[in-house]
């Protein structure tokens, strides 16, 4: 009969382990996404700023900084695992909680990636329109 008793265990060590797994993965994921996005963002920026290399690079770096700040902040904000919802917190719950957190964070990162891409494309379109307008204006004074 004793094996039937459900142990109500919340192991604090498990929570720390969960945090120690979550943090590096979230940080590396953010770093990787930001690097990929802004390595390719340089092309857009050079186009938007008409080949003015200095300000294009500066803008790219500033956007990268903003991306890092926003996403690392969000990653840290959602770190806390609410132990009130668990009667037992062992290996299985650890993996489940991690999957929820990391899955949610990945989806959030994906949305942010596409948002940034949208901004790039919008900037590109606006600069192209300006250029066309300038040429048109010069042709017909």
């Amino acid at each position, binding site marked *: 009969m004793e094996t039937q008793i459900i142990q109500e265990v919340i192991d*604090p060590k498990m*929570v*720390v382990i969960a*945090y120690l797994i979550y*943090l590096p993965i979230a940080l590396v994921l953010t770093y990787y996404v930001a690097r990929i996005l802004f390595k390719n963002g340089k092309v857009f920026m050079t186009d938007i700023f008409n080949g003015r290399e*200095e*300000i294009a*690079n*500066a*803008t790219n*770096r*500033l*956007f990268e*900084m*903003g991306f890092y*700040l*926003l996403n*690392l*902040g*969000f*990653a*840290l*904000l959602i*770190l*806390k695992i609410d132990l009130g919802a668990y009667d037992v917190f062992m290996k299985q719950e650890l993996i489940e909680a991690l999957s929820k957190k990391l899955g949610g964070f990945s989806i959030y990162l994906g949305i942010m990636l596409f948002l940034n891409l949208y901004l790039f494309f919008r900037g590109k379109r606006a600069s192209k329109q300006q250029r066309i307008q300038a040429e048109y204006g010069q042709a017909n004074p």
Partner: protein
Amino acid sequence: MNLTLTTYTIYGSITAFIILRVGWVLYKNGAHYLDDLLYPDIELSHTVNRLLLVGYYLVNLGYVAGTLAFLEKAENWTTLIEIVSKRTAFIVLSLAVLHYFNMAWVRWIKKFQTKNQYQGQQPK
């Protein structure tokens, strides 16, 4: 060293590192923007940039130092990580919001400036 002291050390070093690093990157890259805004007066732009950097450091490091004493007390490593991450998230997110507002602001001024220049030239 007890847990509270550990919290202070970890929190202080992480936030100080982030603030110093971000400030430096913004200082370096924002210089081009300021040069662009205050175009003929490069000297003034450098001065303004340096003053902005010092102001930024004072406000943010001052905020961190001032709120250090109001951190919740950690009972074990779990709560320590939670507390540090929550406070760091708050600082980093407010930095992000400020940063995005600043970029929008600079862009808005630039737009306003070019519009003014354009309108100034129109009557001739």
